[in-house]
């Protein structure tokens, strides 16, 4: 049981670190592939604006001015309720850092992701982004 938890925790850490790398590299340099990181039915909340479905999320990002992200912290946990886990292979990731639009002054942001395994790929179920200061 404890060993099983350990395996899940380690997997959550590894997945979070790799996923975050792909995510911000994608957003900063290869926006056209962003939708691949999302479930078909995913939701993005961007400073309180709700966007549903990966096609609309893709469109949203393509309309966003160009970005540069600097990540300062990552934390991650597996979803588990013990012996009867209702959420196999799902993790929650919390990120903070700085975002700059079009080389302007960077500002602090926080972001939370719920990520699940769909077949052999990790996909975002829910993506929640906010500036620290409006």
């Amino acid at each position, binding site marked *: 049981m404890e060993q099983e938890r350990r395996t899940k*925790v380690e997997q959550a850490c590894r997945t979070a670190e790799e996923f975050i790398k792909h995510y911000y590299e994608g957003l900063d340099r290869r926006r056209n592939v962003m939708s691949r990181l999302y479930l078909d039915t995913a*939701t993005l909340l961007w400073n309180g604006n709700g966007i549903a479905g990966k096609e609309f999320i893709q469109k949203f990002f393509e309309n966003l*001015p160009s970005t540069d992200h600097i990540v300062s912290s*990552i*934390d991650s946990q597996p979803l*588990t309720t*013990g012996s009867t886990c209702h959420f196999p292979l799902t993790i929650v990731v*919390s990120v903070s850092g700085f975002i700059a639009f079009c080389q302007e002054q960077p500002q602090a942001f*926080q972001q939370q992701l719920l990520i699940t395994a769909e077949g052999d790929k990790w996909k975002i179920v829910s993506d929640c982004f906010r500036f*620290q200061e409006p």
Partner: protein
Amino acid sequence: IVFDVSEEVKLPPYVVSFVCSPEGQQVAKQFLEQYFNIYDSDNRQAIGDAYHENAHFSLAITLPKGDGNHKLNQYMPDNRNLMRVRDANRRMKLLINGKENIISKLKELPLTKHDLASFTVDLPIFNPQLMFLNISGIFIERKLHLPTRYFSRTFVIVPLGGGFVIINDLLNITNATEKQAKAAFTKPIVETPVTSPVATPVVSP
């Protein structure tokens, strides 16, 4: 003559709250009021009722940019920022597991007062299986003279025995900006009527 390549930075408007359903809004509001009422009290013992037996809690610190005197030192021993904590055993140890351990850890953290009027609330998922609740806002450490803090916190909440319990709690703490510190605890809490039109996901802009 120059090239016309400069981009105008035009962003979607900043919206303080996004809640996916009226029921979700009701539950989230009640949950947050109860939770922070206990969390901001002198004894956090009763906070345990909010957690699942096997829940996880962890804390990560974001150091403010260019501020050497951030005074976040008292949180550093618990800082699980995976970019700094590379050792697998240490990552395990800093992920607090189980209701009793979480109560102990939360009781160790400095006593707080949260500015509920500063909260942003995002509830992208509210269904019979799961609630994904993300909040952020301002707080101070009540008995200490320290900078005003900014936090963001993520709760994964599941139904249990007619109520709800937290299975994941991720807390991120940093310092408030100068502007945020100035505005802290100056605004009254604005009650958002539950019957107000609740946004469903739309394409924006």
